[in-house]
């Protein structure tokens, strides 16, 4: 059970049960759908961005596992108020955290709450779950409406 608690941290379980910003923005000016053909998980990210590509508001809807739902929820909390560059840089860090070697210490103070997903490193098959929403967010910022995860993480 300890290993499981390592993966399914309290924060993750909480965001899975009550996802934040779980809505479709009515005034969205960007949107993208993320789809993981491996498991069928699907979610839609809607954004309201200003002229400088800064995220004023963000919401997501869809269904997925605890990891993908919690990751989407925590991502929306993080993304609000951030610039496109900040988001892309954090996604890169986040991705490194998830795909790092399990033997190396998973310390990522700069990631703040996002670091709760460090346990995913032990489960390579679940990395895509944790990044699905991020890929969709990135696609929305790049003005691509559909995003299907095909590459291996």
């Amino acid at each position, binding site marked *: *059970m300890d*290993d*499981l608690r390592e*993966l*399914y941290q309290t924060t993750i*379980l909480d965001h*899975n*049960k009550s996802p934040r910003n779980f809505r479709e923005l009515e005034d969205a000016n960007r949107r993208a759908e993320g789809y993981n053909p*491996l*498991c*069928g*998980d*699907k979610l839609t990210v809607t954004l309201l961005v200003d002229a400088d590509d800064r995220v004023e508001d963000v919401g997501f809807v869809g*269904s*997925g*596992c*605890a*990891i993908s*739902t919690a990751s989407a929820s925590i991502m929306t909390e993080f993304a609000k108020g951030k610039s496109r560059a900040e988001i892309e840089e954090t996604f890169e860090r986040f991705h490194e955290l998830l795909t790092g070697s399990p033997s190396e210490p998973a310390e990522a103070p700069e990631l703040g709450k996002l670091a709760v997903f460090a346990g995913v490193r032990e*489960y390579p098959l*679940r990395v895509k*779950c944790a990044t699905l929403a991020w890929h969709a967010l990135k696609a929305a910022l790049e003005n691509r409406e559909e995003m299907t995860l095909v590459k291996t993480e």
Partner: protein
Amino acid sequence: MSVASLDVESVRRDFPILSHCMRGQPLVYLDSASSAQKPRAVLDAMDELYTQGYANVHRGLYELAEWATSHYEGVRDKVARFIGAADPREIVFVRNVTEGINLVAHSFVRERLGSGDEILISAMEHHANIVPWQILCEQAGAQLRVAPIDDRGEILVEEFEKLLSPRTRLVALAHVSNVLGTVNPIRELIALAREREIPILIDGAQGVPHLPVDVQELGCDFYGFTGHKLFGPTGVGVIWGRLPLLDAMPPYQSGGDMIESVRFEKTTFAPPPHKFEAGTPNIAGVIGLGAAIDYVNGLGIRNIAAWEHGLLEYATEALESIGKLRIYGKAKNKAAVLSFALDGVHPHDIGTVLDQEGVAIRAGHHCAQPLMERFGVSAMARASLSIYNTRDDVDRLVRALHKTLELFG
């Protein structure tokens, strides 16, 4: 036919992998519908081929080649007897059922299918028995028709019959659903198609490992199954077809070993089955398949079915005792496959928790997305039971599911 006629402890000793651990716990393997584990006899047969009798088949004139060829062709005879084929020439070795279906699509259905024609499948088909037909239909301007199922997961036979039209060029059905476990009443469905002289293909991937199959008695035209779900190696399967049909069909793939004579002006093809086995085949795979069939015959397919049925009843009751669990697929005639959902827990999370407990199940869409849609879900968890599973395995599954609920509760 009694449950006691299968000595499960002795069976378990035949499968080396079962003494291994997963995540530090004794392995409970409940994913045999995806791919079954291999008994020592299959591994030994392949090893013996490579260490004592290996050569290419149908070519060499030396002793080794003769040995390899006679064993390879011997498996063809064995398969023919195993599924009740009239003639070993009706047994075509392919990679898997997917390739077998593609072979029939390409070499049999394509030239019969015109604009406005129809192919009839069911709502519970695996993608392998959907996509090849869909592509053919698109190319020909034909329609793919889908026979509906009820909430228990049984084909609505009256609806199926209504969908058989003068334009139906092929019926393609699963013998047993890989998700719902439904054993389809294929004898009855085949008879309905045959009354109308409509050819019918049966996807037996989930049928052959669990039920006695006699293709002549069934009356279908094509029947496919795969080795790796029958305790054999991956990369080898069988498509059986009636000899006059195979005889009249053009080749699927072409190259060496499938010809009679090749001249630059004109090539003539070998008769079936070799017409459909271009190139050096999966020799070791076929030898392994032969050993797998011997193994199954040794246990007796009826004993296997009885053991699995007893286990299915036990597991169904045990799972139903878990509140918040819903089983998908409640057909009266059902193979040992249990697909389910837990309230508030995504199947992938179930899969991960169970993995930690040493229990291997499948979670996902099971290559049957239209069926997931039919039941209004994007994924299901699935436990499939086989000859080496025990009531203890089921108990461990149930305990792990309680743990899952505890974690996500």
